[in-house]
């Protein structure tokens, strides 16, 4: 019988929640890395027991953790005392160093600071880890300040894909309220050379050559809070989702506005439709219905909680524009939590499961595509990320 493993990153550690295919009874393991911020953890599609976790601290910086047994035990890749003969140097797994200009040896570029002046790139943390679809030892890391790194040795060492920062628009990128993070990495299952990423507040970008060169894909986005609402870059994209059967169709939750693109991001159109507010962070797609999408509307950019204290997931079965609220067994009064951008995921069981976590520490699950909800856990530390693995 199939199983489900939910990977939860929180402000104070990681938790692994497991259940059988009924998704009624759950085992909770954790906290792993107690006391540390776990921005994200995710499993390899090529080897579900291989997990990667981003462990961070304002005091001690970045640590990458890796599990080879589905989260029972963890290691820092390359953390062994002596490297194997001819192997990578030990202790490099948390070393994220930005590329410099090959011509001058100086920093590749600067970005725009909050006050409009130019500011150097400064590494802070890994926001998102995206394992390769085919190789358990290859994993991408989206970091703050925004850049994309890749490891091909299971997380022991990291190299920047600096064509992203170096393509020319870097000086126009600026931090969002949460920092200048590269938070979304979407790999195209039909084309290993194509990757989509998103940055707050720069926008969405695409490579068609495996990460060497990149271009902004923000046409159609309108952001009234920036000097040129239709600018090529500068948009605060919160999250992007794709259904693997239709990799050219993308859905986006922007700061304000829910958007879709039917041409791999070349042009976006708004599909907020009848949402009560189109501000929010998460967006995801049903595992089997590529036109069924989910968002959690949040009141506004200054009030990061649901309207009226009612926690509601909204579902569209038409790829946007027409939305229905999903409320069964979700709190409908006095609920003032937020759902952060990486804190929603779906499983791929026949009856698609939908999961999300809140800043109040609840992880909710629906085993019937959102019709009914139940909390798996209610009192974790604030949830930063939720990922789901469907296991045989």
């Amino acid at each position: 019988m199939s199983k489900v493993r939910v990977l939860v990153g929180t402000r104070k550690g990681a938790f692994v929640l497991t259940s059988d295919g009924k998704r009624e009874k759950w085992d909770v393991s954790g906290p792993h890395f107690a006391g540390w911020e776990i921005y994200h953890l995710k499993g390899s599609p090529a080897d579900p027991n291989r997990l990667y976790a981003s462990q961070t601290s304002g005091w001690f910086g970045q640590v990458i953790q890796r599990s080879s047994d589905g989260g029972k035990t963890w290691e820092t890749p390359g953390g062994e005392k002596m490297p194997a003969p001819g192997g990578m140097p030990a202790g490099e797994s948390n070393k994220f160093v930005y590329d410099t200009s090959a011509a001058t040896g100086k920093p590749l570029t600067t970005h725009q600071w909050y006050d409009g002046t130019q500011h150097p790139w400064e590494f802070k943390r890994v926001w998102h880890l995206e394992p390769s679809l085919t190789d358990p030892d290859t994993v991408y890391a989206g970091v703050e300040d925004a850049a994309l790194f890749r490891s091909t040795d299971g997380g022991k060492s990291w190299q920047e894909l600096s064509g992203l920062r170096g393509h020319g628009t870097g000086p126009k990128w600026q931090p969002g309220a949460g920092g200048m993070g590269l938070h979304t990495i979407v790999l195209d299952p039909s084309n290993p050379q194509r990757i989509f990423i998103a940055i707050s507040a720069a926008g969405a970008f695409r490579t068609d050559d495996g990460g060497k060169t990149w271009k902004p894909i923000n046409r159609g986005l309108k952001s009234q809070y920036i000097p040129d609402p239709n600018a090529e870059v500068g948009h605060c994209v919160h999250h992007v989702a794709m259904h693997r059967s239709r990799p050219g169709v993308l859905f986006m939750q922007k700061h304000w506005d829910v958007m879709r693109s039917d041409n791999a991001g070349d042009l976006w159109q708004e599909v907020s439709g009848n949402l009560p507010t189109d501000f929010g962070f998460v967006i995801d797609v049903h595992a089997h219905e590529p036109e069924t999408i989910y968002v959690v509307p949040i009141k506004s950019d200054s009030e990061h909680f649901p309207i009226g204290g009612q926690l509601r997931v909204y579902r569209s079965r038409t790829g946007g524009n027409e939305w229905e609220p999903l409320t069964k067994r979700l709190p409908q009064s006095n609920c003032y939590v937020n759902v952060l951008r990486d804190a929603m995921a779906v499983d791929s069981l026949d009856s698609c499961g939908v999961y999300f976590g809140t800043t109040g520490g609840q992880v909710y699950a629906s085993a019937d595509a959102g019709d009914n909800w139940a909390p798996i856990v209610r009192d974790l530390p604030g949830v930063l990320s939720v990922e789901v693995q469907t296991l045989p």
Partner: protein
Amino acid sequence: MNQATTRAVTRATIRVELPAHLRTLAHVGCEVRLEVEGQATQRSVLDALEASYPMLRGTIRDHVTHERRPFLRFFACQEDWSHELPDAPLPDPVASGAEPFLIVGAIAGG
């Protein structure tokens, strides 16, 4: 600054106290003991620490510059060594193992 006498030693066991989060990361108790070759300085002690516990690289000093991370402080014999030169000899009681070298989170309370 520190007035404690210093001495050169060729090999000594140095005691280092780590903050709680680094203990769990390195899977050690409150204090670790390190064999340090040559003179005991902040650099030689941290080099020995990172050689024995590679997972701590980058968590105390920057990977590239080897500068102390901004929210950490170093103490020896009840004196703040955070701003001393990395190659300055550590006080005799630390170099001899009588006193520990302390690595402390910069914000102690809530």
